[in-house]
């Protein structure tokens, strides 16, 4: 049957479904829910050292405190002491071995949160400290990894490097990043009948929380229900990181028989949850006189923390994005997943991709600076194009001609060439302040590289009054997923979007779901919901055809009505008619992304359904005396395919860009030699504020359909924009380059004033 869906909601810039509730404070987050009677509160006891053996734990002083109901340790766990997503290497409570500073050792359950927090600090924890491996240098010394080394090899990089007219080698230091979701980690566990547990969890992955809670409590999955209506931000930080708190709350509920809530204080949230991986990446690149890359050899050293967590996929994605948008005829892309005695690093928007892209863009800048060419020209000359379109992992970039027109259009609209001249003139006359500009592209692969995660389910009900209830496996963290999926379902039934009720994600409604991650939320869940709605619509269409005396092909749904030729009825009338005629008005929908064939062992296949593209042009000014920097203008042209909701997509692009801006400029994680995180609150860890955003901050959508049959030919947009901020980093390098042209810039990320001043010193130093 031809698709006779009329698009009245899809492609419209509809507001976020909770927008009015957000601005009135009436959108409840978990801590806002009325607490069930007798709710107890949990605080955690934390390891005082980063590495060592736990010798003795004296909790009697805590147990004696009025208001303390229970103190839980590893010994209280009926199931497995393991909250890891896969490998069994993350204890819920440290038992014998302490692996990082502030690792949870025990939990205090008390009548109030303040009593619990105060009591938790009264423990006597006796431990024998060992020398911790804190940073990448330490880990290189111990040689310990959380997972085996892994590399892609394409062609013959060694002879190609030797034969190249020019060679450059260098090392790039890339900092980590704290998610700083505004709503911290939280779980509320409520005991049910027969030992069942219901958990409200602020999580991107309810199914995994369910499985881990069941594992820890020794229950079957069906005894645990996990629900999440909304998160106050996730960004990857609640993909694997929410389970721990849910499991502790569930254990407390199981032990006490009372509802138990665990909400981390912000400082604990910083110390206890993983961050974006920091990297040291070492490269050698060979290129010709125009800067066209002949061979690229890079080794990514990733600091993973004490356990594997999601580091397999994260660092793989760094490798997958080490080419960014450029053809590498010969390449070795190697990676090491280093073990340190720090909190286990985890998913963060971009999932390792940004580090690979940043390294590549730094290399392109270094090539351009060495050759005295405009970096944009070197970028353009290296782009994938027909005939030069195979990635280092063997996948063809089938739509490789998409990026070139995006870059050209942005180059024109941002007046890149004219501004480069203006900047040169300014710099020539300005000894203290220097300006810099850069236009950088991004190509980002869409799909989970772990193939089985590329599936989704949805559950749609039409009630006999014609109102629709929508549920799917994706979670809402602010990205507008629920709004987009509701738009899709509303159009499927031809009803106004207000008729579609968005409900909390629940493991009881859609089982075995993937995390809402990898930018895939709308692609997967939108399609699953569409399929569910279509199943119901087809049944309803048959009923309408029968009632209206028309062939089913003539029936279509729009504006709250069901029409066939001249005849029509309201959607509500049809729903009622279906009910009376005993037509099922409920359906699940299931979708699995087609065509994905990645084989990690063989390093071949197609890991991605498609690529999303974009480009950004940023201009900065730096103070060469102090290293201070200001971002002055940003122009972005980004590819969302045919946008499902341009307002939401622009929001994702702007928000992603600014998050990337923070990662690369002001957000610095500082650990001391003992492995303690010194920047554990917003007073010391600085994410961008309103004044960090330039007045000229223009985002335009590249509104061309996706080549692949993704939902309504749209493209995923959650993560790719983070990497647009690399234009800022490159613009800073450009400004530094101005103090002594012809020498590649060595700038570490984040480019704090101190990092910029250090880079300026190296640039100015007489020794080459």
């Amino acid at each position, binding site marked *: 049957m031809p698709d006779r869906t009329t698009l009245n909601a899809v492609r419209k810039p509809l507001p*976020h479904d*909770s927008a*009015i*509730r*957000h*601005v*009135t*404070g009436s959108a409840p*987050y978990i801590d*806002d829910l009325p607490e069930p009677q007798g709710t107890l509160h949990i605080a955690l006891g934390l390891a005082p050292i980063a590495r060592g053996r736990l010798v003795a734990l004296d909790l009697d002083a805590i147990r004696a405190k009025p208001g303390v109901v229970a103190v839980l340790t590893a010994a209280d766990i009926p199931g497995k002491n393991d909250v890891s997503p896969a490998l069994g290497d993350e204890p819920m409570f440290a038992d014998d071995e302490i692996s990082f500073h502030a690792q949870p050792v025990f939990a205090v359950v008390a009548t109030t949160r*303040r009593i619990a927090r105060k009591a938790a*600090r009264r423990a006597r924890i006796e431990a024998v400290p060992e020398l911790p491996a804190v940073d990448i240098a330490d880990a290189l010394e111990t040689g310990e990894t959380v997972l085996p080394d892994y590399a892609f090899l394409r062609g013959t990089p060694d002879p190609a490097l030797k034969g190249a007219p020019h060679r450059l080698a260098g090392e790039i230091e890339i900092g980590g990043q704290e998610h*700083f*979701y*505004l*709503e*911290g980690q939280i779980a509320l566990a409520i005991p049910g009948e027969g030992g069942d547990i219901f958990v409200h969890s602020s999580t991107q992955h309810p199914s995994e929380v369910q499985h881990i809670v069941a594992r820890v409590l020794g229950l079957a999955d069906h005894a645990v229900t996990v629900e999440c209506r909304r*998160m*106050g*931000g996730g960004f990857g930080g609640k993909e694997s990181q929410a389970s721990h708190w849910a499991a502790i709350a569930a254990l407390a509920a199981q032990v006490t028989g009372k509802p138990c809530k665990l909400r981390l*204080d*912000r*400082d604990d949230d910083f110390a206890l949850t993983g961050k974006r991986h920091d990297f040291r990446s070492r490269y050698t690149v060979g290129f010709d006189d125009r800067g066209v890359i002949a061979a690229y050899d890079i080794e990514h050293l990733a600091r993973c923390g004490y356990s594997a967590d999601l580091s397999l996929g994260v660092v793989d994605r760094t490798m997958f994005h080490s080419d960014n948008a450029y053809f590498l005829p010969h390449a070795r892309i190697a990676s090491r997943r280093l073990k340190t005695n720090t909190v286990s690093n985890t998913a963060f928007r971009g999932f390792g991709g940004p580090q690979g892209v940043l390294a590549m863009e730094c290399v392109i800048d270094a090539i351009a600076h060495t050759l005295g060419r405009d970096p944009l020209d070197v970028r353009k000359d290296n782009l994938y194009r027909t005939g030069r379109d195979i990635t280092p992992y063997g996948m063809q970039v089938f739509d490789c001609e998409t990026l070139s027109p995006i870059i050209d259009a942005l180059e024109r609209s941002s007046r890149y060439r004219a501004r480069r001249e203006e900047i040169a003139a300014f710099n020539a*006359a*300005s*000894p*203290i*302040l220097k300006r810099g500009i850069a236009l950088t592209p991004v190509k980002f692969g869409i799909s989970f590289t772990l193939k089985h995660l590329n599936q989704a389910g949805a559950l749609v009900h039409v009630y006999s009054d014609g109102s629709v209830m929508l549920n799917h496996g994706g979670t809402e*963290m*602010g990205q507008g997923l629920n709004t987009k999926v509701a738009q899709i379902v509303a159009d499927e039934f031809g009803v106004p979007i207000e008729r579609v009720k968005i409900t909390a994600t629940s493991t009881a409604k859609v089982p075995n779901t993937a995390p809402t991650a990898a930018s895939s939320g709308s692609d997967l869940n939108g399609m699953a919901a569409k399929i569910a709605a279509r199943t119901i619509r087809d049944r309803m269409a048959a009923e309408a055809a029968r009632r209206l005396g028309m062939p089913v092909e003539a029936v279509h749904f729009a504006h709250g009505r069901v029409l066939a030729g001249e005849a029509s009825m309201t959607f509500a009338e049809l729903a009622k008619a279906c009910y009376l005629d005993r037509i099922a008005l409920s359906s699940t929908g299931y979708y699995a992304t087609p065509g994905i064939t990645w084989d990690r062992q063989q390093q071949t296949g197609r890991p991605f359904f498609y690529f999303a593209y974009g480009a950004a042009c940023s201009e900065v000014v730096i*103070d060469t*005396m*102090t*290293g*201070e*920097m*200001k971002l002055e203008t940003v122009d972005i042209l980004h590819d969302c395919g045919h946008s499902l909701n341009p*307002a939401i997509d622009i*929001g994702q692009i*702007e*928000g992603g*860009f*600014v*998050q990337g801006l923070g990662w690369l400029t*002001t957000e*610095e994680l500082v650990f001391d030699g003992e492995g303690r995180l*010194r920047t554990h609150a*917003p*007073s*010391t860890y600085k*994410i*961008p*504020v*309103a*004044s*960090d*955003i330039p007045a000229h901050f223009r*985002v335009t959508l590249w509104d061309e359909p996706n080549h692949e049959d993704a939902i309504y030919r749209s493209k995923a947009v959650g993560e790719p924009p983070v990497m647009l901020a690399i234009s800022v980093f490159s613009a800073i390098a450009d400004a530094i380059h101005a103090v002594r042209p012809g020498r590649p810039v060595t700038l570490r990320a984040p480019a704090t*004033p*101190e990092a910029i001043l250090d880079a300026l010193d190296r640039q100015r130093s007489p020794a080459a």
Partner: protein
Amino acid sequence: MRRSIRFIFCGQAREISSFDPSTTLLEWLREEMHATGTKEGCNEGDCGACTVVLARAEGDRIRHEPVNACILLLGQVDGAEVLTIEDLAANGELHPIQAAMVRHHASQCGFCTPGIVMSLFAAYHEAERPVTREAITACLAGNLCRCTGYRPILDAAGEALAGTVDDPFSRQGAERLAALRALPDNRDILVGNEERFFAAPASLDTLCELTAAHPEATVIAGATDAGLWITKKLVAMPKVVALNHVAALTEIVDGEAALFLGAGVTHARALPFLARLDPDLETLMLRFGSAQVRASGTIGGNIANGSPIGDLAPALIALGASVHLRLRDLVRDLALEDFFIDYGRQDREPGEIVTGLTIPRLTPGRHFRAFKISKRFDEDISSLLGAFMITLEGSIISQARIAFGGMAGTPKRARETEAALIGAAIDTPHDWMPAVQALDRDFQPISDMRASAAYRARVARALLGKALTEIAGTRSRTRIVARGSEAENA
């Protein structure tokens, strides 16, 4: 003596005569009133998710100020109307700020949104029209949003703040003002008992009696620091003495020779007066904390707690400020630099109160410059801050007062550097070199999470050079953000 606090909440006068002295406003709102629209983001006054507005009568108008409810004590709202996100939409009709936020897609996850709306609501009532983009970013510096990238929030704010003030609160202005005026009664407040109390004396005499009788009591002004002792260090604070109601401490004397600021004057109130002393002080004050912190925090509190990185102290030391102290009836004055003895130690007896500061005005021939270096421009603690007052006779430096923050355990003068500058010609950079080198003798900074020792030492020298370059006059631009409200000095 009044044994209760009185304020307006949900449009009703409230009187509370029993509460734990260390209860924060946020705890009271969320846990006792179950008003959960106001969020806890960081519990230390740095993210703004808990922003509410305190309205107070000020002469014949109502002043609306944003505050961080997480570190404000409940007792401190005495005399105010507490406005929260739940108050804004009247009869289901969105406030103009809220409507603009929805129109511009300015919320994503929504968790920071109530705080942002409240900050903008305060600006809606207070901001000078027409409102500039800088004024908007300044009023939002204390509100972190991790989702939107701020652009739609700024657009929404620009639109909502474009017109004149006309909302249900302004329309009921007269009634609200009358209700607010009925609250203060100039009585000393003490809620609790001898062992456990929240006190807010009305006069300096009662205050000094109380602090002398209870030297272990926690004296708070804005509580922007003491609030964290409660929320983060979890200290018990059985006796709290708040300075907010002592009229003598909130005095401002804008004299011809000097500016006097009572210790209880908030940064927000002091700002326009300090701005008139020098444009760099205005910039410094606008970068000091956030609108919320400036509305609560006080000049005296910032000095009295002796933070080594306090942004105000070095600037005021360079300007030659003196500090006034009182213990019972004993009054004394000190040069501000002498007040700071060592890290965490000030020249202040138990029970002694900082009552105010006197800041001399710049006289002809005196030039002032202050530079704050931080990772983030707004709402960040400086890695270092350099303040310079240079007196010129012709082109010769006849006097120099230089102070740094972040370079030692206290805000500290650079005495060797100052001495080395005397007699140098301002237009001969070669003459400055001995002074630049002397900085290394004046300071041995440390490395911490904000910056390394090497960077601090290095940039301290650069700032001295920059100050002298600017005072000497130069055609090229010397800073990324122009000095105060002056145009670029090109």
